[in-house]
């Protein structure tokens, strides 16, 4: 009876919003702190007590970061090259394989699909030592191509499931009709299937790009020169290897690292979230 009273309802509503807002603070606080530090004048970043808002907003830290630090723009350029390459590779591999699994029935089909789930569950950290050996042996060590291959291929099993689920939702009659109309098989692929598959590929591309962009472990082991290394490794070096941590520069670098990906994610997430949870559940 008590549960139906208006007062109880109001209190539980306030409590529920309270819990959600607490989690918002927890989720946002570290990033807010880093981002606001990036826009503070240098003296203020070391000041006590710390300031919640910058006393004045300055872009000086960003200028220093790109012109006068071990950072420069190079690590970001490297990250973009590696991530774009990996994304293309993943979209190519999983776009083809997902179509094969969806439209053709062949012996071992189910077994191979399950095998891909197993591959997705394998952590790449376990394989880092063989990666290193392979890279040294075949001249892939310290190359863009090496990292592109690793990221592209490790993202592909999960993305194949995403694409498979996506093709399953496109009726096969469309291609059959195109074939009956005298359209060649490859033309029907290019003009009928591909345009329909674009949203699925956007989801796959977002996932693959995000994974490659955020990777640290593979990059730190499989590269050695600053001309190849992505921003994550350089950031790590700045965090750990200096006796005196430059909070301002690191904050600016983090800002540049996270904000573009947040924007991209916001744009593509509607394709992505459903695909991700579906894929995870089938997997």
């Amino acid at each position, binding site marked *: 009876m008590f549960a139906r009273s208006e007062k109880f309802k109001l209190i539980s509503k306030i409590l529920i919003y309270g819990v959600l807002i607490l989690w918002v603070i927890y*989720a946002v606080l570290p990033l807010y702190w880093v981002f606001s530090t990036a826009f503070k004048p240098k003296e203020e970043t070391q000041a006590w007590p710390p300031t919640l808002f910058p006393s004045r907003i300055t872009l000086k830290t960003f200028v220093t970061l790109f012109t006068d630090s071990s950072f420069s723009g190079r690590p970001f350029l490297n990250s973009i090259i590696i991530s774009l390459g990996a994304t293309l590779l993943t979209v190519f591999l999983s776009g083809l394989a997902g179509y094969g699994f969806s439209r053709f029935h062949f012996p071992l089909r189910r077994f191979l699909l399950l095998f891909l789930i197993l591959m997705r569950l394998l952590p790449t950290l376990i394989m880092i030592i063989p990666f*290193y050996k392979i890279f040294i042996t075949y001249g892939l060590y310290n190359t863009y191509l090496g990292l592109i291959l690793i990221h592209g291929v490790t993202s592909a099993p999960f993305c194949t499931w995403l694409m498979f689920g996506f093709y399953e939702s496109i009726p096969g009659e469309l291609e059959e009709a195109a074939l009956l109309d005298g359209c060649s098989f490859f033309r029907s692929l290019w003009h009928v299937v591909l345009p329909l598959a674009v949203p699925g590929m956007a989801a796959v591309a977002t996932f693959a790009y995000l994974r490659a962009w955020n990777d640290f472990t593979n990059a730190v082991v499989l590269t050695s020169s600053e001309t190849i290394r992505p921003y994550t490794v350089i950031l790590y070096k700045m965090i750990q290897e200096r006796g005196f941590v430059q909070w301002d520069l690191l904050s600016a670098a983090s800002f540049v690292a996270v904000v573009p990906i947040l924007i991209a994610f916001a744009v593509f997430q509607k394709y992505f979230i459903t695909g991700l949870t579906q894929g995870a559940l089938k997997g």
Partner: protein
Amino acid sequence: MLGTRKNKALWGYLFIAPLFICVFLLLLYPMLDTITTAFFDIKLVNIREKTFVGFKNFQTIFTQENPNFFTGTMRITLIFVFFSVVLQVGFGLVLALLLHLKWLKAKIFFRNVFLLPWVTAGVVCGFSWKFLFNQTVGVLNYLITLVGIAPQAWLSDPRLVLPTIIFANIWKGTTYSLLIQLAGLQSIPDELYEVALVDGASKLQSLRYITIPMLVPFLFINLVTETGDTFHVFDRIYAMTGGGPLHSTELLSIFMYRNAFVYGNLGVGAAVAVFELLVGLAFALAYIFIFRQERV
């Protein structure tokens, strides 16, 4: 042209061939190579030279001192994994239940904000928390001095550092649970609740007898993936503490990295990796066993 059955199968294989060639070369082969490497003495500086040593690498790990492998590294790893997984799945479930409430406003806003940590790179995550927890410039110490608690050395006090990194770790890990549980909640048909309401069930009763049982498969998948992922968490913790102070946050993954790429002993590193894989597998099997029992 795709008419015959045989022809069709051939086309199927053709489409999946590029993927499987890549997966065999860059996933399956390395997996198997990790296992063989664990039985050899191979150094980072010269990978061409290797000698078979049997189980010696495993012996090296298990007899390690300072920290002792079982009372040090493994104990830390298990505490880290246990609390991370329980809290991630628990908070994920609670947040998903709240976000699924019909009357809740600004759902999209909350969900998008909760996605932020998940999109953030591990290294950036590690740095952000290192900054917040910093003894002299960190905001956390400032906040606790406001309520009259003395500033703490969050990341250099061996007693505090483990809870601290768990706190930072679940920041990133909870989002995935939330997404899985939310998908689970959305898969429960509304009719079930309506029937329960007609039968006079209270909200708590329908939570207990409809929502939770229907969520069990999702909880299962969630537990398996989160446990696996947490065993291999590396970059965010490594960026935050580097395994220190005095190995007090040296998880199995960091221990593996140190042996292989700092000490340059690839064989020992591979042995740690194999051990890690076996522990992960044991947990997965345990979950399957427990959930089977539940269903019967």
